[in-house]
């Protein structure tokens, strides 16, 4: 009989610290499943960011490092260079990766660093209580854009996947969503691909997840997924931007 509900071996028994309905847990699970399926638990290592997923170092069953805010790609670089025999990923939010850590992600990608980056875009700073992120949508209200994000004042949301796709070195870049069961299945494929390429030493792999923050958006979990489909997906288009393994350049 096929087991369809189980706890991936690569997740510890530590309970997630996320709000009910938060999709960080789904993203963790996809990564854990892919690591399990590819038999990588003994060679895997990850870097947790600063953000709601700061405790990710407790959730994965292999060795983990916790990085300063935004610095995960640099930490992962140091780890991969020190242990080329291990497979290294970072897990980062939009404030972590696209604001304070912009230099680190761009240069890790530009070096074609042999790491995977999992980027959870929920258009807000979840952990600190709902401030504006670089990915916050135009006119979206947050605690630091109480009148809505004004693009003439603070600019437009950053499309990180597209930005990184201007670089030559990255091997694989795809934007997926966690907003519906069908999208989660597609997201799983992207995660598996990123980890497989990582395992094969192909180069820098990047998966952006369009996610939600029901708590700080002030919208219940199910409605927040609908809100994200209507408002985020038109701006952050899903799809593969780079896949050198499949000739997508």
């Amino acid at each position: 009989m096929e087991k369809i509900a189980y706890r991936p071996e690569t997740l510890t028994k530590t309970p997630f610290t996320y709000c009910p309905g938060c999709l960080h847990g789904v993203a963790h699970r996809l990564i854990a499943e892919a690591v399990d399926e590819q038999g990588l638990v003994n060679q895997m290592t990850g870097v947790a960011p600063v953000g709601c997923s700061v405790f990710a170092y407790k959730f994965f069953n292999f060795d983990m490092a916790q990085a300063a805010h935004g610095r995960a790609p640099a930490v992962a670089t140091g780890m991969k260079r020190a242990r080329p025999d291990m497979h290294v990923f970072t897990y980062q939010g939009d404030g972590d990766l696209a604001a304070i850590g912009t230099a680190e992600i761009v240069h890790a990608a530009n070096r074609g660093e042999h790491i995977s980056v999992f980027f959870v875009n929920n258009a807000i700073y979840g952990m600190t209580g709902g401030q504006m992120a670089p990915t916050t949508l135009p006119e979206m209200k947050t605690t630091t854009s109480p009148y809505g994000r004004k693009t003439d004042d603070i600019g437009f949301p950053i499309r990180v996947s597209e930005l990184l796709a201007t670089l030559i070195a990255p091997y694989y870049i795809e934007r997926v969503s966690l907003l519906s069961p069908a999208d989660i299945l597609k997201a799983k494929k992207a995660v598996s691909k990123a980890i497989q390429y990582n395992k094969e030493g192909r180069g820098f792999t990047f998966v952006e997840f369009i996610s939600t923050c029901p708590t700080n958006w002030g919208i219940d979990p199910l409605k927040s997924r609908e809100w994200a489909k209507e408002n985020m997906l038109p701006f952050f288009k899903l799809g593969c931007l780079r896949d050198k393994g499949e000739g997508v350049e």
Partner: protein
Amino acid sequence: MAKILMKGNEAVAEAAIRSGCRLYFAYPITPQSELIEYMARMMPKVNGTFLQAESEVSAINMVYGAAGCGKRVMTSSSSPGISLKMEGISYIAGAELPCVIVNVQRGGPGLGDIQPAQGDYFQATKGGGHGDYRLIVMAPSSVQEFADMASEAFDLADKYRNPVMILADGMLGQMMEPVEFKPSRSDEEIAEMWRQHESWCVCPNEDGDKKHHHEINSLEIDPQVLEKHVNDLYQKYGVIEKNEVRYEEFNVSDDNEILCVAWGTASRIVKSAINELKAAGKSVGLIRPINVWPYPYEAVAKAIGPKVKKVYVFELNTGQMLDDVKIAVNGKVPVDFWGKVGGIVFTPAEIQAKLEECF
């Protein structure tokens, strides 16, 4: 081994490689660029990693990652770049990772200039980054000592799982002196050093009972747990304070009428002045802290002989180590200070004149 004439910046890099450093991450800045350039040339020859980072912030975080894997790793910079590393240094200290950081100091504050200075003493010894932590800080005064400190620094870093800073300056980095190197550690010795960290570092897992879950981390969200962690760190620092005080006594005797205290480049100049005065029959002693943290408080206090009228501190700053000397002297005799700043180095004649005024 025969002595080689070398710049301090290159000598410390060579010595680091010989002592088993196989990863180096840095960003260019004067007056330490010979160090990063030397590493760029030599690391590939020992199958090591040289990586020019996008910033000093990234470089120190690469160090955090590599040190988290238990490998000997180094970074270097000069004052403005060291400021950028402070966040990472605090994390490294909090996560108890061994690494070596070289600061080839230049004039500050701000962009300052590119001449030798000692203005980063406070930053190195009193914090710099946030939170309750300590760096072991070694202060060389010659190219030979700069080189010797590389391997000593790595050994101390490994022994205490603590970051160690070598606090040099533009003079020591740029000048050439004869230097003799210790033999290189063999690949087996280096592999053995790495294995010693396997109980805590990021490393491949094994199947079955041997499965581990190591966390490289400085976060403790529970105040009670953080309290214990910080207290444990302080206990470790206490052991370091007991074991790792290092200083040099120069011409210290009961005849001394003045006791000088100076470190690094400044101490060399003070020594020349003391020799001149000796020839003229005037007795001046010098305490040179070799490690500026932990600080040789007792040695300074003990060196105050019966005839000493004054303790005189000379630094290439506006009086930073001065505070530590005052703690050591504790009001026993007056403490005086003279320094030069802006990257201007005092001459032996200037020091001699200052000391002669005291007789």
